[in-house]
């Protein structure tokens, strides 16, 4: 049953990332967080595809999405729903949550930390307890994952409690120059509608499976990794460490394992709270997460472990999306992919699946030239 669910989520990821350049890892981490029941904070400048990635993942999974750009004057009603004035006249405080955040499966809150104290406190309750309560309104929130975005991490201590609810931190920047042709190539290309039936249920199957994953084998390597991170000066609170186990369970479930192993501790890097901490962690973790293995989340694994096996896996995955996609500029994309392969792997060092993919890409290029 979980194999079917994983196949559904693979298809959802393929749909979500089609035409989305350079944000595969972000989409995969959103999915990982949704399976783990954790939330994601994306930090980066405006216009870097943050909201588009969330929209694509939510759209591909078929859930209800609530998206809002917060400002200093945003009212709680704009997120949680208006007070029912007719009932208020009778002395009953009730909120109409129809179509608002308390009824959403996926939420994207842009510029989260600009929200008022009233909004942030209510949101903290929703994220902590999975319930929205106000007056006589008590709604169990179906939210699978809340993704918040900001340009910079807040320095205000008062916001720390809320920021801490977002276990997974992803730092994004503008695409590198080498990918600009791809970006320009997909601009304005209409997306085909996707069939999402059964995908939200598949997500819930994996959420259930993740909660049942045995962690005993992964706890030793996890503790070893955390000791190395702390020795390197990467701040990692006990609370974040304990909660990171849910990500490890989710990674194992998405890899089809019922027992988490050393191969599943890679999400630990995403728990490091700042960009500097993640960069330091990147220097320490490759040796510890070199066994990272997750075919479904190969881009995220490659970003975290940054090892040759992970990079080869990502390149193989990219090759599948490269051919016969009907988009203009295929020759340039094929050459770019082949250049990436040759820059990173000498002919003697290529893993077999990457070598096979390279051979196929060269043949494809010859037919197009």
């Amino acid at each position, binding site marked *: 049953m979980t194999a079917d669910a994983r196949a559904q989520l693979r298809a959802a990821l393929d749909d979500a990332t089609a035409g989305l350049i350079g944000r595969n890892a972000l989409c995969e981490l959103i999915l990982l967080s949704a399976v783990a029941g954790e939330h994601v904070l994306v930090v980066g400048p405006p216009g870097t595809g943050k909201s588009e990635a969330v929209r694509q993942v939510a759209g591909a999974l078929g859930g209800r999405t609530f998206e809002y750009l917060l400002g200093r004057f945003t009212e709680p009603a704009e997120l949680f729903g208006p007070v029912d004035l007719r009932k208020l006249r009778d002395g009953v405080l009730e909120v109409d949550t129809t179509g608002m955040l308390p009824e959403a499966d996926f939420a994207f809150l842009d510029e989260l930390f600009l929200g008022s104290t009233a909004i942030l406190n209510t949101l903290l309750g929703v994220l902590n307890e999975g319930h929205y309560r106000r007056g006589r309104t008590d709604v169990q929130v179906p939210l699978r994952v809340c993704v918040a975005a900001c340009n910079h991490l807040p320095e205000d201590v008062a916001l720390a409690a809320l920021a801490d609810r977002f276990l997974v931190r992803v730092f994004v920047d503008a695409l590198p*120059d080498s990918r600009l042709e791809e970006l320009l190539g997909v601009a304005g290309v209409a997306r085909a509608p996707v069939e999402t039936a059964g995908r939200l249920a598949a997500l819930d199957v994996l959420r259930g499976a993740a909660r049942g994953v045995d962690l005993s084998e992964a706890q030793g390597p996890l503790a070893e990794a955390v000791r190395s991170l702390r020795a390197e000066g990467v701040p990692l609170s006990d609370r974040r460490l304990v909660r990171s186990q849910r990500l490890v369970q989710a990674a194992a479930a998405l890899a089809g394992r019922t027992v988490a192993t050393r191969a599943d501790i890679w999400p630990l890097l995403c728990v490091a709270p700042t960009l500097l901490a993640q960069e330091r962690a990147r220097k320490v973790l490759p040796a510890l997460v070199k066994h990272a293995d997750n075919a479904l989340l190969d881009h995220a694994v490659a970003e975290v472990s940054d090892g040759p096996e992970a990079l080869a896996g990502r390149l193989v995955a990219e090759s599948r999306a490269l051919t016969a996609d009907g988009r203009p500029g295929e020759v340039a994309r094929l050459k770019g992919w082949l250049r990436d392969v040759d820059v990173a792997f000498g002919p003697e060092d290529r893993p077999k699946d990457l070598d096979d993919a390279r051979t196929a890409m060269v043949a494809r290029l010859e037919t197009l030239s």
Partner: protein
Amino acid sequence: MSGLDWAPRFPPLLPTAVAADGEAAARLVAEAWAGVAQGRRFALDDAPEGVVVVRVLDGGAVPWVDGCVPLGTCPLAPALLLPTARQPRAPLALLVQALRAPVGEDGVLVLLPGPSLRCLTLAAPWPLVQP
């Protein structure tokens, strides 16, 4: 000169040039000219042993053809172009010293992987200019 042992290098060097020989060399030159026609800036080195090296002058991506070897430099040896994905199993500083001795301080050296040691000296590159 005897052979040199090579090992995979990860992460790879940043590619700043690309080498090719034989049939691939002709295709590499054509690819570089095609890039120049689109506004790219490259320089060409006609190295010994039929090897062609194209250096990138505008900071963009290196041209690619099947059979080429992307090259980059590492901070320890800035005047030595090495394959981006492979590294010699020898202390680089000593290696550079040994390779420099017969050719002097001028020019850029290129070290290519292979069964025997292939160290080429590049003199003055020719900037490719659109006719």
